[in-house]
């Protein structure tokens, strides 16, 4: 293709271009060191994620004293396992029971407990989830394949301040012999947001 027809090339993605130019200016102005940006990305892409939360939940399932601490002071209990930081400074653990299911949302923006769950998924940040979780949580859960019986109350926690919530799902039946690591493998991200339940043990061990 001749060089005098540059518009024949695929146009660059506008956001790619916009962010690239912004970073270029920020770096040129001495405001940002790109290696720090790399380090931030590496932290959330590779180090922080829902496996952290799963470890907290699995320990709560197997260590009643820890579960009690988690219920009283989640920030300290989770911090004792080495998990803390931005968007998880003030933690609260909320426990599912046979008659109560907890669901987390942030209607105003997309607050989410980063240190234990990583960055939020797109659906958590979507207007659909943020607007509907508080008015029709059962309909929203059904869209995740989770149909709760009517006798189970649903408590929706709208994260309007700097408290960040972690759902502690119920330990599935038939897991009495499993180790903490085996249990952690059952604990999905969604089960700690309240849009899912832990995986049934036969699906993991089988």
């Amino acid at each position, binding site marked *: 293709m001749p060089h005098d027809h540059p518009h024949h090339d695929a146009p660059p993605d506008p956001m790619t271009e916009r962010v690239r130019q912004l970073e270029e200016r920020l770096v040129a102005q001495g405001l940002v060191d790109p290696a720090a940006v790399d380090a931030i990305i590496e932290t959330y892409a590779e180090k922080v994620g829902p496996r952290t939360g799963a470890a907290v939940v699995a320990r709560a399932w197997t260590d009643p004293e820890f579960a009690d601490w988690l219920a009283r002071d989640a920030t300290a209990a989770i911090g004792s396992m080495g998990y803390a930081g931005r968007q998880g400074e003030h933690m609260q653990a909320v426990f599912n029971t046979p008659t109560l299911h907890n669901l987390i949302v942030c209607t105003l923006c997309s607050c989410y407990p980063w240190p234990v769950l990583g960055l939020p998924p797109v659906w958590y940040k*979507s207007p659909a989830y943020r607007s509907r979780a508080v008015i029709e949580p059962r309909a929203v859960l059904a869209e995740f394949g989770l149909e709760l019986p009517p006798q189970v109350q649903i408590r929706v926690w709208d994260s309007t301040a700097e408290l960040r919530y972690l759902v502690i799902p119920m330990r599935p039946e038939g897991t009495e012999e499993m180790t903490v690591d085996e249990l952690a493998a059952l604990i999905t991200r969604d089960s700690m947001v309240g849009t899912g339940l832990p995986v049934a043990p036969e699906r993991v061990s089988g």
Partner: protein
Amino acid sequence: MGFGPVRPEVNEPVFHAAWEARALGLTLATGALGHWNIDESRHARESLPPAVYLSSSYYEIWIRGLEALLDRHGLLDPAASVPHPRRLAPGAVAQVLAAGTDYTRPIAGPPRFRPGDRVRARNIHPRGHTRLPRYVRGHAGIVEAEHGGFVLPDANAHGQGDAPERLYTVVFDGADLWGPDAEPGTSVSVDAWESYLEPI
């Protein structure tokens, strides 16, 4: 008018494009410069025109908010090009992210409300930033917990300092919020600063 179904994505990646990762990194790295706080940055995002806000992806909203903040604080003034004294060093990233920010504040005097109290979310419509969702305004709920003093976003977003107030978790019955169209057996809580609430 409605937003349609929630669409979970199977095996969702942390980022859907390289620019999303840069957007996250740039937002956090510039935040570390100390020119604005989390409430001002939330307000910058939420002040986008509604059609732009609703048609932008999450990280696009972040980038538009960041551009607004940089502009408001004059940080892209071409004259300045020496490294910013608080520029985040790569070696400091892990510590800064792990430390986070403590939003609690000591507060004097007794709490106005106690767990079990019936309260009403005030029917306020401030022109500036607030964290009292519209759907609870004017509705009655029950105080479930008192969390001590926290930085007040309504002040902090506008450079008016911490203005700490006590924070409460207030639970609303679904039927009180949504009337006969509520789903049965549902309740919603919000975390509300003391000035958001009035006794019943």
